[in-house]
């Protein structure tokens, strides 16, 4: 913790950071599925002030998603099973991208397919679009051909998918890992070995809730993805495990971030940037507040460059 008292009052800490081939104004992005296509938040915070935003997951064709009820609240969290509803690549390019090109922040497009070929097709088409700064592959999608097991659960399957997408995507390619695994490091390694530029850790944890009055699942599809503060300890652990294993690509930390302190925990654990998800529902302007809080915390601790925090966890005596 280096502190240079005289510069403290004068200079704002440098918040610039780099992750997976992209420079960000600051380390705070908004997470896929919790920030729409950006425009929905235009009146609620300064998009220009964000490090970046990640769009709702896009597939080659539009998808209508799952029947309701799709969400429910849990202790310090929520379950969702939206069913990857999205407008599809074409409508995205036509209707959503024009706004995103002018919104003044970095735009990552989250994408997926239900088959191997759909992933590759979708990645290639999105990467070709002007205004897309990078892609984030969502590999938590069930693999229809492999009996519904998520693509992202087996390091071998995942590695193959990353390699194939990498071959057609000439922009920064991030892979968003599932926490429903006993070995997050093996998944991250499969990404690094096959050319990914960064890993986003974590997606939602599979969970469930029951309405005891009706005796039915609270979510129509029975299972849903758990997000929010409840999952933060698990997310942070996985980020640190991957960081400690010295996987040679940077990490974007995600899971339950509510404030600047949470964000800094992820940086200390080894993340180069973070994404704010569910918290944007609790308070739509939270990403902006979190950036301010990181800045204040750096000032208070005498940190002049936010990158000093990355992986700066003190372990052992």
């Amino acid at each position, binding site marked *: 913790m280096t502190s240079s008292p005289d510069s403290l009052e004068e200079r704002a800490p440098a918040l610039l950071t780099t992750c997976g081939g992209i420079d960000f104004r600051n380390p705070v992005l908004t997470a896929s599925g919790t920030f729409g296509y950006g425009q929905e938040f235009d009146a609620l915070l300064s998009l220009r002030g964000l490090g970046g935003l990640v769009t709702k*997951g896009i597939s080659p064709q539009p998808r209508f998603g799952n*029947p309701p009820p799709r969400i429910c*609240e849990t202790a310090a969290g929520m379950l969702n099973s939206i069913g990857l*509803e999205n407008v599809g690549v074409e409508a995205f390019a036509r209707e959503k991208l024009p706004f995103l090109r002018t919104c003044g922040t970095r735009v990552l497009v989250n994408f997926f397919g239900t088959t191997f070929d759909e992933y590759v097709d979708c990645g290639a088409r999105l990467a070709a679009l002007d205004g897309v700064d990078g892609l984030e592959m969502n590999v938590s999608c069930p693999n229809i051909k492999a009996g519904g097991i998520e693509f992202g659960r087996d390091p071998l399957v995942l590695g193959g998918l990353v390699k194939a997408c990498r071959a057609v995507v000439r922009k920064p390619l991030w892979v968003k890992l599932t926490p429903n695994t006993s070995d997050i490091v093996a998944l991250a390694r499969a990404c690094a070995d096959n050319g990914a530029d960064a890993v986003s850790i974590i997606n939602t944890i599979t969970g469930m809730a029951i309405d005891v009055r009706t005796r039915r699942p609270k979510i129509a599809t029975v299972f849903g993805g758990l997000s929010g503060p409840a999952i933060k300890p698990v997310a942070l652990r996985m980020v640190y495990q991957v960081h400690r294993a010295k996987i040679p690509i940077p990490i974007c930390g995600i899971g339950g971030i509510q404030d600047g302190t949470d964000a800094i925990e992820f940086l200390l654990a080894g993340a180069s940037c973070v994404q704010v998800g569910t918290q944007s529902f*609790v308070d*739509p302007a939270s990403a902006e507040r979190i950036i301010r809080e990181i800045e204040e915390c750096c000032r208070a601790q005498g940190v002049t460059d936010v990158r000093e925090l990355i992986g700066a966890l003190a372990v052992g005596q």
Partner: protein
Amino acid sequence: MLRGDWGRDPLLPRPLSLLSVAHEGRADLLAKVVGKGTALMERSPPGSRVSVLGPLGNSFPMPSAEVTDLLVAGGVGLPPLFMQAESAARLGVANGSEILYGGRTSRDLVLLGEMRGLGIALRLATEDGSLGRRGRVTDELEARLERWHAAASTQLLRIMACGPREMLWAVGRIAQSHGIECYLSLEEQMACGIGVCLGCAVAAQTRPYRYVCKDGPVFPASEVMAHATAASTSRSEGGAQ
């Protein structure tokens, strides 16, 4: 969407309808205590700060002198209909509307004086008969429509309803059977209120889903009374956002 300064339990903001909007930028809400969030609201001392995101979504169609609006409220579904009555009064057409308001007992029926003050006709129903007709508000609605039929009235009717899901479907069916234009204000679980979480989907006629927060909460009954099954084609087993 409203949220008090209550930490992270409960986490998400709660959707509430506007009850009444006064001119000086003041708004009234009416909430029934059903769980944690509403209990915390009730316990908040006067002057407590809350975060509000809104107003969001649409409203019932404007009141008009040409048509008689039957405003059907079930229990805590009253607020949007009260607001509708208020704007009818403001437009000077309150005498062309009627409120049909039902609850389990007389204790569930509130703001009766205020509504009478708006100059709007009030028909009440309680399941235990403690106030107004004994029975459901839909019984009251059917009785009202029978009289309309019997009188072979040329009066143009329109129905607007808010209340429990089962009541709304019943109102929708009644309206359909009489060929009357009908609007329903729906509820669904909500997280964001602004169309981004896609949590508040309801199965619809014209496209697979519509969203209570941004396409609603008010929908033409014909739009949302389609059965939901056709829409579940891309249904997969959970875990997928």
